[in-house]
Every structure is written in structure tokens, then in C-alpha cells.
């Protein structure tokens, strides 16, 4: 029996290639996800190992990785002066303060040296820092000399000896490149500038306080010994941790971040596999149906049902293994390709090829199991065929009633909808995320289960124009699509899944955009906005210069920093923003104001965000203590405020913020400019642009452009989503091609008959193309409807995050339908050509 199964696969190889491809694609994605994660993980591991090489660290407790490239110490600090005392400890080789801050380097072509997503910063060159790598050239000896990291030098187009500009904290200065540093690990595209130590300290640690002191031990000293000795001498309020602990912490934090990304990707991988399973199930269902007579014969000569079942299972296993093998290769190829792409974008990743036994085994297992499970149902049907069917000329396949399926699907749909409604009605319960997930899954699975019941009606509606306009092709096509609702639903189901997600994503993006627009338009009234991308900041000097321009009525920044906020017994790390009371009612019209907010701010008090207050149980009159690098400061909560643009839970007047953190260390990424009533806007904009141009990282936008810019960020994320969903659509297309090809084979006699009564080859191709388009559009329409339904609860769920409008992007949805038509046409090409080429005589001859 096994031999028959295997021979059959060889004989009908073409039939199974589609299934193999489907499995391969799904497994490639799974493997690729695992491999990518490993590659990223090892890249960052190497990065951490190379950049955190010390044996011990003296630092402020509670520091998180977010501050790794932030502007200096904020929540507290270790005085640089302690370096001497610590260096004197027995066994210490050197103590290096950790001072870094954002900087923009201008390359040879006059643009900023920057690769997307990677940081750009300046750090001091300490000659006795063992982590400095190998230096070519010389050490920077003043504020106008810098050394560049090797990759930074390469991508800047500069050479040692060239002069260029460096922008630090809003100041542009001319610098000369005097050397290049080769670090031991890939820097993943970061732009790293090494400058004279005194200059960097003055910029980013003006009060003489840093977040961490790095300690290197002499040979032969153990980390634990070192930690003990240092702890005895460490300044008050700081903690000493070993290098190993520090590295583990960093790696842990990175791994957490990577975890989200890889979970996200894994979900899509599983989606791809799920879709692939559809195709395999379909393929086997059709192939079994065609060979019913053969199975009946086998049963008639004495094969047991188990043996018939087994022969199909063997085929499924072969497809699974072959598909998985191809998929694994594909996955690794994919990741290598991604690495190469990153390489070209100047972001070098780890050189280690992420080939691990686990990944290979997982890929093989997943692909094979999916194939086996997908083939199980048709296999069962073949096993149970009565032997007498072998004698019949025409094998009847009794279509089981769709009743049970209809009811099951309906139950799922109702349950899913109920879960979504529950999530929308109680958005503040901790379960809303879970309810959303369950509801979405229930709805999608319910739609798939109830598919065969619903598809005929949907197809009839969609086919109406074709039937009316393309005679008789339209009616023939419609008849073919409707005659086997299970098969059509199964084929279209793959597209349904992908399109449901696309639909939901499109609504989410459109609603986010609309909400952002509406919030900005109601709450903000500005003429121009200056923006910078964190951790870059807009320096106070820039604000002053623009204030001095003619035609400018007012310039208001929103500088912020991070401090420790203690209220009662609880203490958390939160942001604090410097809110100028003059902004209220002019530039900013908050959603909600409780208490005399403007007076409170002007009087030196603090106001708190309404949602944060609710969450933490704070009220007007409560005392809070803000602890920063300059010490602890007490405030009384004098009012509550709710505004989407605030950016932090606590607000004080800008003068108060200066007490907490020196202005040079505050982060300001949004500065609003109000113009005078009758000013010449073209001239004013020109003037503002001239002020910020040398800074390279500050953009000028008018109100509309600002909103458009925010919308564009949302679109960017949507593109990534579309790319991932494109994979499931690709698999779905394979499914359609597969079904069509096999149904052409099944209908050979019917096609012969049609040709014999005069159906032209073009008309025949048209029939098949119309079938394909109907299937694709049906799946897409159902999927989009489901996706929009799921997304309709988003505004209720995400109201706190600022989503207040539900926007259904009709144009995007229509574009998806058009895409479905194109997909249908494309998928039909090969089957239609095959059918048209069938010689009439072969088709109508018996057997």
C-alpha cells in the first residue's frame, strides 16, 4: 500500500507541487522568524559584550536601558568626583565615567550621517578606557577634534584630516577628524563620534554628575572581590554591580524587546501555515475524489480502511517532509538576504549564520504535522469508500449536509461578536485585550466554518454583472463556483484570513489618523511646529532665536525629562514636562482642566494628567516628591489636566523644570510657533528655516504638514503590516491556482462537451478566469467585512490612547477588491491556458 501511495505521488507529481510549495512558504516563514531572532539576538549580544566590557559598575539604582542614549543623568547621579576615590581602591585598574549624548555628524556630502533606527551619539575618548578599541590616528585634544568609529567613518565619506560639522545640543561647531577607532563588535549601524573628554563632560554632565561609573579591574582580581571593595567606598545613593550582572541585565532587556518583535512575526508565520494547511486539505480532497474509483478497487481486492488511510497519510508525510526541507532552505535564504539588505543600509549584523538544530527540527516538525493533519479528513473519506463503488461507472460522492457546519459556524460567529461587544462595553477591565483577541479569533474562525453556507449567496450576488454581461461565460462560471460550496469556501478561505487582517489594519490606521487629526485640530492652534526626533532635542537657544524673529508672537517649547516620582509610599519613574501656562487657551486647548491649572503652574505648583491620577489614586491637594539629579523637590498637586500632546503625566512650569534638570539636559522635541496676525508667512517660514537649517535634525512644518507627518508615521507601520500579510495572500493565490488546475482536470469531459458545442478557446479561458475572479473577490469581500467588523470596536478600546473616531477607509477597501480581481485573473492564467489547449477529441473520448 505504501508503494502505491509513493508511486502515486511520483506519477502525479505536478498535482502535489502546489501543496509542497504551500508548505514550503509557511515553513520558510517560521524558520525565517526563528533564524532572524537568533541573528538579531547574537548581534546584540556581541554588541553588549563589546560595549560593556567592564568588571564592575557604580551606578544609580533603577536605571533602565531607555536611558542608554538619553541626555545624561536624570533620576539621580553619581558624582564624577568620586572617580578618584574609587580608582584608589585596591585592584582597580581604571574608573571611567559613562557620559554620552545625542549628536549629529555631517558627512562629506553635507547630509547627516544617519542610518534609520540606529542611534547617533558622541562619547568621550578616555585613553585608559580598555573598551576603546584600536585607534588609528590620534586622540582628540580639544573641542574641535573628533575621532570616528570605523563604520561611521566609512559611511560618512570623510577621511582622517577632513573638517566637517558636528551638532550637539543645538550648537553647530566645526570639527576635524583626527582618528578612526575600530571596535571589536558590529555596531549595527550606529553613528559614533568620540570627542575630547572635557568637552563631552561639560555638555552632558554640567553639574558633574553621571548615571554610571565603569570600573576595570587589574588582572587577577575577581569581580566579586572588586564589588565588595568598591561598595565600601561608593558614594551615597549609588549601587555597585558586577560586570556580569550588568551584561545579563542589558541582554535581558534587549531580549524582552526582541521578544515582542519575534512573537509578532511568529504569529504571522503561524498564519501562513494555517493558510497553507487549507491548500493541502483542498488538494488532497480533490485528489482523493478523483481517485475514488481507485480506492474502491483497492478496497474491493481486500485492502483494509486503515491501509487506504495509510497510503494517503504516506503521501501527506512525503509532501510535508519535502515541503519542510525546501521551506527551511528558503527560511535561511530569506534571513541571509535580510542580512545583506541591512549590510547595504550600513547596519552590519552578526556574522554568525543562525543555523541551529532546533530551528531545523522545528521547521521539519511543523511542516510535516500540518500536512498530516490537513490530509487526515480526506484520507478518512477515502478509507471508508464502499468497495462496490469500483464497479460503478460514475462514482457518487455524497455531499454531507451542511447543516451541522452552518450551526457550528453561527455559534462561533455569535460568540465572537459577543466577545467583541463585551470588550467594547467594558474597555477598562483588564480583560479587554483578551476579549478582543478571543472575539477576533472567534469571528474569523466562525466565518471560515460557515463559509460553505454563505459562499453561494455571496457568489450569486457578485456574479450578477458577469451573468448579465458575459453570456454564456458568466452563467457557466457562476455555476461552476457554486456547485461545490465546500471547495470554493476552502479556496477562498485563505484569502479571507489575510484580508480580514488587512481590513482590520486599514481601519485601525485610518481611525488612528483621523483621531490624531481631530485631536490636533481641536486641541492645538499653531502656525508652525518645529520637530526633532528623540533623542535629538531643540536647544533653548534655538527657541530664543526664533522668539526674536520679526512677526513671531510667541514660541513655546515642551521640554521634558525623567524623574522619580514619589507619592505616599509609592515611587515610580515618570516623565515631567515644562508647561508654560501662557500656552493654555492659546496654543493648547486641553480636553479637560480640573482646578485653576494656569494659576497653579504660574505659582510654582504641579498638575497631573487625569488618567494617571485616576490610575494611581492621586487627588488635588496630594503631596508628591520629584527626585532628580539635583535632589528631591516637593510639590503639591494643584490641578488636573488631560491633553493628548502633553507627553508626560506630570507638568510644572518651565522655571520649575530648570530646577530639576539643567536646560541643556532637557529633551524638547516639539516647539510651537505662533505668528502675528498680518505677517508674511512665506518670509517668516523662510526665516525660521534659516535658523534651524544648520542643526540638521530640526524640521519646520506648518499645522497641516505637522498633522500629515503624524499620519505618515502611521502609514509606515501599515506598510510593514501589508508586507507581512502579502505573504498570506501569496499562499492564497497558490491555493486558487491549485483548485482551478485540479477542477479543470476533473471537468475534462464537460470542457470537451462545451468545446464540441462551439465554445471558443477564448471563451473557455474566460469562463475559468471568471471563476477565479469570483472566488478571489468572494473571499476578499467576506474577509474585509470581517476585518472591519473586528476593527469597529477599536475606538472604544483605545479611547484612552487617543482614538476617538472610527474611520473606514473606503478607498483602501476598494483597492483591495481591485487587487482581488487582479489576483483572480493572474491565478487563472495557467489553468485557463491548459484548458484551452485540451484537444476537443481527447476531452470527449471516454476515459
Amino acid at each position: 500500500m505504501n508503494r502505491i501511495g509513493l508511486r502515486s505521488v511520483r506519477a502525479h507529481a505536478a498535482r502535489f507541487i502546489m501543496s509542497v510549495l504551500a508548505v514550503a512558504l509557511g515553513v520558510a516563514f517560521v524558520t525565517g522568524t526563528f533564524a532572524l531572532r537568533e541573528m538579531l539576538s547574537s548581534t546584540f549580544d556581541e554588541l553588549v559584550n563589546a560595549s560593556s566590557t567592564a568588571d564592575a559598575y557604580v551606578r544609580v539604582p533603577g536605571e533602565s536601558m531607555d536611558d542608554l542614549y538619553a541626555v545624561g543623568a536624570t533620576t539621580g547621579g553619581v558624582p564624577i568626583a568620586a572617580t578618584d576615590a574609587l580608582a584608589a581602591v585596591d585592584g582597580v585598574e581604571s574608573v571611567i565615567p559613562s557620559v554620552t549624548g545625542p549628536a549629529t555628524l555631517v558627512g562629506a556630502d553635507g547630509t547627516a550621517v544617519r542610518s534609520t533606527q540606529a542611534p547617533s551619539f558622541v562619547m568621550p575618548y578616555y585613553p585608559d578606557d580598555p573598551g576603546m578599541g584600536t585607534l588609528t590616528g590620534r586622540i582628540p585634544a580639544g573641542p574641535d577634534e573628533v575621532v570616528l568609529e570605523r563604520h561611521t567613518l566609512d559611511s560618512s565619506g570623510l577621511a582622517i584630516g577632513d573638517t566637517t560639522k558636528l551638532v550637539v545640543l543645538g550648537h553647530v561647531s566645526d570639527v576635524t577628524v583626527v582618528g578612526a577607532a575600530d571596535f571589536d563588535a558590529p555596531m549595527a549601524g550606529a553613528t559614533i563620534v568620540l570627542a575630547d573628554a572635557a568637552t563631552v563632560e561639560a555638555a552632558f554632565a554640567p553639574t558633574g554628575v553621571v548615571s554610571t561609573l565603569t570600573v576595570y579591574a587589574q588582572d587577577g582580581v575577581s569581580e566579586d572581590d572588586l564589588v565588595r571593595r568598591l561598595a565600601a567606598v561608593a558614594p551615597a545613593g549609588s549601587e555597585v554591580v558586577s560586570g556580569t550582572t550588568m551584561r545579563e541585565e542589558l541582554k535581558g532587556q534587549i531580549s524582552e524587546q526582541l521578544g515582542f518583535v519575534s512573537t509578532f512575526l511568529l504569529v504571522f508565520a503561524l498564519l501562513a501555515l494555517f493558510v497553507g494547511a487549507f491548500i493541502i486539505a483542498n488538494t488532497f480532497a480533490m485528489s482523493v475524489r478523483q481517485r475514488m474509483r481507485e480506492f474502491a478497487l483497492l478496497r474491493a481486492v481486500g485492502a483494509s480502511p486503515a491501509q487506504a488511510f495509510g497510503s494517503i497519510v504516506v503521501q501527506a508525510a512525503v509532501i510535508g517532509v519535502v515541503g519542510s526541507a525546501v521551506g527551511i532552505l528558503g527560511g535561511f535564504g530569506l534571513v541571509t538576504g535580510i542580512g545583506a539588505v541591512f549590510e547595504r543600509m550600513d547596519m552590519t549584523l552578526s556574522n554568525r549564520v543562525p543555523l541551529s538544530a532546533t530551528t531545523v527540527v522545528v521547521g521539519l516538525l511543523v511542516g510535516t504535522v500540518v500536512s498530516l493533519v490537513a490530509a487526515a479528513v480526506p484520507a478518512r473519506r477515502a478509507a471508508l469508500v464502499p468497495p462496490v463503488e469500483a464497479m460503478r461507472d460514475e462514482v457518487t460522492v455524497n455531499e454531507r449536509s451542511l447543516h451541522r457546519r452552518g450551526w457550528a459556524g453561527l455559534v462561533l460567529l455569535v460568540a465572537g461578536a459577543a466577545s467583541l461587544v463585551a470588550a467594547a462595553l467594558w474597555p477598562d477591565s483588564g480583560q479587554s485585550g483578551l476579549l478582543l483577541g478571543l472575539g477576533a479569533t472567534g469571528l474569523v474562525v466562525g466565518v471560515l466554518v460557515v463559509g460553505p453556507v454563505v459562499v453561494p449567496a455571496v457568489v450569486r450576488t457578485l456574479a450578477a454583472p458577469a451573468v448579465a454581461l458575459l453570456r454564456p461565460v458568466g452563467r457557466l462560471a457562476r455555476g461552476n463556483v457554486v456547485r461545490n460550496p465546500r471547495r470554493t469556501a476552502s479556496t477562498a478561505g485563505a484569502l479571507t484570513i489575510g484580508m480580514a487582517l488587512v481590513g482590520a489594519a486599514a481601519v485601525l490606521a485610518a481611525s488612528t489618523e483621523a483621531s490624531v487629526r481631530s485631536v490636533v485640530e481641536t486641541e492645538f492652534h499653531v502656525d508652525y511646529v518645529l520637530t526633532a526626533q528623540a533623542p535629538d532635542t531643540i536647544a533653548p537657544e534655538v527657541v530664543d532665536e526664533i522668539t526674536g524673529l520679526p512677526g513671531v508672537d510667541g514660541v513655546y517649547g515642551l521640554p521634558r525629562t525623567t524623574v522619580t516620582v514619589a507619592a505616599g509610599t509609592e515611587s515610580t519613574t515618570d516623565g515631567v514636562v515644562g508647561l508654560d501656562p501662557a500656552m493654555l487657551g492659546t496654543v493648547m486647548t486641553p480636553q479637560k482642566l480640573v482646578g485653576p491649572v494656569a494659576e497653579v503652574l504660574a505659582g510654582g505648583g504641579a498638575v497631573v494628567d487625569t488618567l494617571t491620577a485616576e490610575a494611581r489614586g492621586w487627588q488635588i491637594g496630594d503631596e508628591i516628591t520629584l527626585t532628580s539629579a539635583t535632589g528631591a523637590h516637593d510639590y503639591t498637586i494643584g490641578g488636573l489636566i488631560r491633553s493628548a500632546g502633553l507627553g508626560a503625566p506630570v507638568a510644572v512650569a518651565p522655571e520649575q523644570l530648570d530646577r530639576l534638570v539643567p536646560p541643556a539636559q532637557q529633551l524638547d522635541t516639539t516647539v510651537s510657533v505662533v505668528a502675528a496676525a498680518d505677517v508674511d508667512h512665506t518670509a517668516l517660514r523662510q526665516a525660521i528655516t534659516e535658523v534651524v537649517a544648520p542643526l540638521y535634525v530640526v524640521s519646520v512644518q506648518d499645522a497641516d504638514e505637522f498633522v500629515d507627518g503624524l499620519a505618515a508615521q502611521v502609514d509606515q507601520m501599515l506598510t510593514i503590516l501589508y508586507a507581512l500579510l502579502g505573504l498570506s495572500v501569496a499562499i492564497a493565490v497558490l491555493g486558487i491556482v491549485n483548485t482551478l488546475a485540479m477542477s479543470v482536470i476533473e471537468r475534462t469531459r464537460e470542457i470537451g462537451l462545451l468545446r464540441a458545442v462551439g465554445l471558443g478557446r477564448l471563451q473557455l479561458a474566460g469562463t475559468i478566469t471568471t471563476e477565479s475572479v469570483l472566488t478571489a473577490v468572494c473571499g476578499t469581500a467576506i474577509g474585509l467585512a470581517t476585518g472591519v467588523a473586528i476593527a469597529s470596536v477599536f475606538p472604544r478600546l483605545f479611547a484612552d490612547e487617543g482614538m476617538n473616531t472610527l474611520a473606514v477607509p473606503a478607498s483602501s477597501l476598494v483597492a483591495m477588491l481591485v487587487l482581488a480581481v487582479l489576483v483572480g485573473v493572474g491565478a487563472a492564467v495557467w489553468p485557463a491556458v491548459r484548458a484551452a489547449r485540451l484537444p476537443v477529441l481527447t476531452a470527449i473520448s471516454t476515459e
Partner: protein
Amino acid sequence: MVTTPELDPVRAADALLEPIASARGLTKVHGSGEAEVHALRGIDVDLARGELTAIMGPSGSGKSTLMHCLAGLDRPTSGTVVVDGLEVSSMSERKLTKLRRTHVGFIFQAFNLVPTLTAAENITLPLDIARRPVDRARFDEVVEAVGLTDRLSHKPAELSGGQQQRVACARALVARPAVVFADEPTGNLDSHASGEVLGFLRRSVDSLDQSVVMVTHDPRAASYAHRVLFLADGLLVAELVAPTQSSVLAALANLDGYSRAGSLAGGQR
């Protein structure tokens, strides 16, 4: 075994009319080299207008191949076929497709109907394909003649075998084709249904003025024809006019006596 045709006066006039289909020197060879099969070895035949002609012979005699060539479904290796004045053997596929819509009708042994269309839609199928309007009077005439007036909205799965064949007959005739080719139309039917279909085919020739060419192995079916042509080993070997079931049986028995060397109607090349 040729008998002189016993002509009745009406038939005499008809016999002088041009044949509806004719073949000259028709040969068909399948395969090549050692696996060569000569399905037709040079056939000259005229099929009369306004008659039901049956083509009979043992399996492997080439009768189906002959019909396929006559109908334009297959291209002969050599020789010519003319149907209703058109040279079919040299027509392009596109022209042949057009021919099949309204000039030539087909009835097969099985799988005659498109399962997703109703009986009425199946009947008008060739006209729909040709985008020609359906002559309602003709449609009603044909439907009534096959006796399916009350089954028009049924799908083929809801019709019996005999009814399906009758729908196929109606379809073949509704466009008033020049000639109808039927390949074993009663092969799958029981005797009652066979009788109905054969009766209808004969009636269509007699009263609806059609010409029908039928391939069959059933002597009873052949007895409904005006003329029976006998093939053996790719050659036309005998002809029988005004056949009865027993005369056909006798002729078939005699066919065994013919070897490749002997032939009567049609030359040998």
C-alpha cells in the same frame, strides 16, 4: 452484400440532392513507426441530405474516427471532408468552433449536459455561445417534440438518463443545424428510453427536415435509419438501405468474412 435501393417516388427526388456531408480519400493514422495504427484507410462516402444514416462496425473498425473526421472534431491524415458545402478538413480551429455552434449538432453517449445549467439553458447553450437570439417558435417545437415541456427548469441531476439524452437531442436541433452527429446516443439507456430517443431522431429527419448521422453498435438503433454504412478495419465494406433489425444482424455477421483485401464501396489505397 449490397442490395439495390428500393426507392419510393418521394425519396427518388431526395436522392438526387447534394449530399449533406462527403469524404474523399479519408485516411487517419495514429502514432508513428512501429506503433502506427491505421484507423481509416481511405474512405469515400456520401451522406444523404434529409436522411438518418447509421454507421456500424465492430470495435476498432474506425467508425467513431470516421464520425469525428466528418464532424470536424479530428483532422484526417489525408483526404478531404466537405459538410454543407464547406471544406471542413482544412478549416482553422476558430472556424471549426464557429461551425459547431449552429451548423453542426452533437449528441454523445454520455456527459451531454452541463450539470450546472437547467434543461432549458442546456438546450439554448450553442445559441447563447454564438450570441444568437433563440427562435422561440422553434424552441417550443423542439421541446414539445422531445416531450420535456414540464422539465425545462430541472437540472440534469434531476432528470433520468433518457430525459437527459432527449435534452441533448433538443439542443442539437434547436439551432436548425445542417447536420446532427450522434455518437452512440442510446448506449447508456434502457430499451424504453432508447426507443424514445431513436424515435425522436427519426421523426426529426422525417418531419423537421434534419439530416442525422449516427454511430452505433446496436442493430435495433440502426434499424431506425434510412441507410446503414458498415466499416471494418478502416474501410467502408458494405451498405444497407431500409434496414430492419434482422437484416442488420445478418450484415454484421457477414462482416466477419471480409478481410483487408476485400472492399466494395470505396477504393483501397
